[in-house]
């Protein structure tokens, strides 16, 4: 017995939303970054679920692409974060507001 695909879809949607809201409410840059990863993986979960529902393996192969991209993002993102917050104890996004208006 397997669960109906829609459960996975809903779960993915919830994860996506949690990621999105997390991004909006958290000030720590690293946490924000993790929220984005959460969103990406929610998308991955959706892909896989649809792949199963549609009986099409293409969707699952797409996940690999996404994982690679996410990894690249991690590298660059962390690099940027490190470059900025090298000399700091905490890393909050709100400290960056020189550019505005």
């Amino acid at each position: 017995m397997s669960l109906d695909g829609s459960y996975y879809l809903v779960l993915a949607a919830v994860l996506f939303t949690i990621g999105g809201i997390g991004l909006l409410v958290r000030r720590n840059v690293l946490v924000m970054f993790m929220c984005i990863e959460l969103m990406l993986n929610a998308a991955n979960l959706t892909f896989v679920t649809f792949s199963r529902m549609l009986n099409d393996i293409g969707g699952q192969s797409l996940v690999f692409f996404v994982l690679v991209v996410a990894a690249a993002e991690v590298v660059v993102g962390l690099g940027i974060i490190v470059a900025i917050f090298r000399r700091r104890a905490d890393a909050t996004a709100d400290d960056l507001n020189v550019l505005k208006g």
Partner: protein
Amino acid sequence: MIAAIGGFVVPHIEYTAILPELILLGVAIIVMTVASLSSRPFPAGLWAGVTAAAGAASLGAAWYMSNQVNSRGPHTTIAGAIAVDGYSEFFLVVLSIAVILGALVADNFLRREGLDGPEFYVLAMVSAAGAMFMSVANDLIVVFLGLETLSIALYVLAGYNARRRESHEAALKYFVLGSFSSAIFLYGVALTYGATGSTNLARIGAFLAGNVLVSNGVLLGGLALLIVGLGFKVAAVPFHSWSPDVYQGSPTPVTGYMAAAAKAAGFAGLLRVLFSAFGLMRADWQPIITVLAAVTLVVGAVLAVVQTDIKRLLAYSSINHAGFVLVGLAAASAAGLSGSLFYLLVYTFMVIGSFGVVTLVGRTGDARHRLDDYRGLARERPIVAAVFALLLLAQAGVPFTTGFLGKFYVIAAAVDARSYPLAILAILSAVVGAFYYLRVVLLMYSDPLPAAGRAEGVALPPGTALVLVLASLFTVAFGLVPGPIVDFAHRATLLF
């Protein structure tokens, strides 16, 4: 076919179709390798030259492909993931030009700031390749890959000036928001896949043509998220908020390049997705695009009025330009599409040229970007001032420049589609636009501030000079004789 049930078939790869991308990526890898293997210092300007040459090569390849397409007709390749058509080649040309001009502007900048090195150019070429993949993509996942390649390279470029705090801030903001929007886009891809069973644009289109969906919520949701993701890239309001900050904070040549390439690629993806895959759902996306266009036009123009920093001003003005391109898109017609393409082509020259001037005037430290820094420029550097004036006036839409034709083209499309309010809004935003462009022009031609003792004059190095000449020549020459580029943009849609 990427995959077929029961067996893995290696698709046929037509290398010429992705030759420009391959050239840029190849050169990028070679440069990186050579630079890291050798410990000797390289002559100044070498990397810029190599990059420009690579850009020229990719331009040649794109032009060759364009002619091929003209004579043989369009097709898809690599399992249908890549489209070889006038549209693709059009954007390949535009992006190659952006690479060439961007490299030429950057050369002087990097040397001046003591940042010269291969990394910058490698990143630029990689990002260009990503942008190109976005443009030629006939598959949502390829769009995504191109988008990410482009974006990740740009995140780094934005923070390239390690000495400036603004640069870091720009990079981080761009990164956080860019990733956020990428995630949204990806989720949109997933939903679309779920609703139609494919990520291939042509197949999505065919599916929509062949089936009537009873419950299309997933599909519509996916489409909405796709629009958001790409709307972010083109800095459509309300997804624009990153762009002023990033434009201001990034090293100026990056800003110019980014404004041209990222916007072109974003629109390439958006237009292709909406027309090719969702052309039949026009009724669903047209209102959204119309509203986006309207809001983008107004916010861009109105906010530019109150700016005192030239880069921010140009950032908002580029938001306004995005609004114009969206006007063409909102017409949802062939004329509108070619209008949008035309606009992007001429915009590339205007914006890189403009930021070229801004780079010069920023001088060492890349910090003199207040509008007051432009006072009396005409006296000190009449040619630079004249070129800047020309490019700004062209952006304002003065006749006999490509800038006017671009605006005309999209507005004509809007009128033809009977969206009169949007057309009027667009042209009124151009009126507001004229205000801030003219303000800068007049500042250049007024007397310099007495207090501003100029330690450093505005230099005009040959690379940037070439860019300025090219940009202004293009702007005026094709403003006078627009036939060739109008045809070019027109063909890009006919062969679609």
